[in-house]
């Protein structure tokens, strides 16, 4: 199996889907001539031409709405946001147009569209460029929220997202684009709404997604040295949430820590904890803890930024608490 970067796996998915279906087009800022701000769309303009790889002005609300309108009459747009931070300008089109159209038209008008782009913090990009909004979008009925953590998942999930008949918020990890991994060639799709056990374990379940999958895996490795076996569940899709996979794992380990890059208040972890306490309360041998980004706008200073971010040590600390193995 070939080894690709996350970026090239996405590029491959885009290329294959555009080859497969002439109704699929890519639109966004710098996707064409510039080859993509993060080079995800490299080579696509040359292969598919300017009708299908469309550079836009810096006008997120406008081109998100153009995508929704095109999808309403049957095209399958892929709308790239240079980052999800900028997509805040377009949120009316995601929430009020894309997510609502099927329902308020009584099922007549669907919006098969993918909104995609990098999400989460990178390095010292400060408050306005270091945000994770998945819990916000996952709050909206009508949207699906997909967040791949590995190159193979990136390809398989993006291809499924393009073929899905509903509007999809597809969040890529800004820090994951250079991550390498084995990626199946050709036709390879993954179901939306299905989590993946990235590492099996017995003593504690680590629920994570996107960038925090690597952090949880690192924490699991550290814990292994102390004889604690952690199971790492990558949600892959935030909405619909694969609660069955979470319940099954918690049923086995009886302890759980939920890890996410975003803020704690009403975050993805809050939903996961709620599901667990309602459905598998009797399985728990300890409280479910959450490890999240700090509840502050992201600071620029390196030292403060590190303190604000989730890391493996914070995950290990939480696991020690839920397994009652903390030193203090």
């Amino acid at each position: 199996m070939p080894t690709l970067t996350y970026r090239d796996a996405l590029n491959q998915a885009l290329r294959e889907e555009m080859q497969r279906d002439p109704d699929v087009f890519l639109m966004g800022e710098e996707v064409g001539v510039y080859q993509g701000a993060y080079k995800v769309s490299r080579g696509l303009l040359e292969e598919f031409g300017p009708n299908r790889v469309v550079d836009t002005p810096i006008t997120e609300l406008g081109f998100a709405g153009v995508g929704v309108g095109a999808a309403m009459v049957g095209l399958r747009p892929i709308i790239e946001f240079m980052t999800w931070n900028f997509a805040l300008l377009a949120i009316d089109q995601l929430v009020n147009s894309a997510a609502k159209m099927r329902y308020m038209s009584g099922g007549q008008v669907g919006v098969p569209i993918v909104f995609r782009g990098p999400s989460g913090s990178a390095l010292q990009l400060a408050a306005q460029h270091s945000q994770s909004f998945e819990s916000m979008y996952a709050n909206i009925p009508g949207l699906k929220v997909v967040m791949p953590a590995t190159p193979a998942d990136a390809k398989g999930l993006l291809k499924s997202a393009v073929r899905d008949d509903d509007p999809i918020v597809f969040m890529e990890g800004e820090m994951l684009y250079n991550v390498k991994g084995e990626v199946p060639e050709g036709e390879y799709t993954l179901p939306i709404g299905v989590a993946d056990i990235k590492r099996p374990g017995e003593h504690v379940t680590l629920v994570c997604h996107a960038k925090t999958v690597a952090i949880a895996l690192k924490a699991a490795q550290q814990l292994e040295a102390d004889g604690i076996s952690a199971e790492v569940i990558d949600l892959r899709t935030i909405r619909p949430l694969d609660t069955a996979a979470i319940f099954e794992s918690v049923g086995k380990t009886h302890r759980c820590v939920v890890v996410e890059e975003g803020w704690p208040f009403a975050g993805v972890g809050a939903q996961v904890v709620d599901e667990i306490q309602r459905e598998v309360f009797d399985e728990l041998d300890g409280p479910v803890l959450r490890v999240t980004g700090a509840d502050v706008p992201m600071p620029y200073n390196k030292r403060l930024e590190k303190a604000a971010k989730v890391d493996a040590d914070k995950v290990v600390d939480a696991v020690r608490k839920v397994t009652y193995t903390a030193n203090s």
Partner: protein
Amino acid sequence: MTASTKASRKPDTKLAEKYRLYLRQMLLIRRFEEKAGEAYSLGKIGGFCHLYIGQEAVGVGCLSQLRPDDYIVTTYRDHGQALVRGISSRAVMAELFGKAAGCSKGKGGSMHMFDASLGFLGGHGIVGGHIPLAAGIGFAIKYRAKDQVAVCFFGEAAINNGAFHEALNMAGIWKLPCIFICENNRYGMGTALDRATATWNISERAASYDMSREVVDGQDLLEVMAAMDRAVVRARRPAAPTLLEIRTYRFVGHSMSDPIHGHYRTKEEVEAHRKRDPILLWQEKLKADGIITEEQIATMDKEVVAEVQDAYDFADAAEDPELEELYADVYAPVQAGSGE
């Protein structure tokens, strides 16, 4: 050919028939909206309810120039345009009543009339938010190299919204087959145009987008038809967008919760505008041209009133949606190809 030049001569039978149809459509909107207002007062209709009374010639004139395969997106003041496009008065009234037989299955209500089979892609409730949708439909038409047209209605208050600027700019860059119709009824809710817009000659905005423009008297049906005809010609291949500023007036309040004149306009002002009632003006013209008689108008009005009463009775007796409908239509029923 424009409607104006043809109308100045003695109209042929076919044209006379069309002109009578337009009168009937305007009368239908007027009587329908009066009935909707009445039903609202009786609590049969809930939520917001924005009536189209006074603006009938805009909807009728613009839609008269379209083909069945063209597309329309509009605002929450959408009942009249839905009727003219061909959604039955029963289906529109049932939607207002929130019934399963409504054109959006009772899930949309007054602000969200849809009939995809007629290319009527919604009443939309966020001011300006639907203008980019029309640009997107125009984009899709061009993408497929078709000669359809995407029409977008919005009020003059929407032009100060970023969505207006962003959509028209892209329509200008890409020469999309879009007709942006600004129904300038002078008030965005209760805020007068000159209190909200720095350059209140709205059509001039088109210059920013390298777009054709016209200012149209929206109370004069023939003028509306003629301007729309020219815009449609421009929009069909090779495509070019147009901004039409159609000056009209809302004879009633912004919505049912707003009195006819309120604090923001005087009774005298409303009365003065009512003298240019688009329906009366059209009736006068048709009578003068020998196309219709006073008696025929009375008969037509009776028929329209009966149609509206039938729609009301139908909607009143119709069933609520089943409770299972609550969770239907949130997502697509079949996830083709997604592996689910």
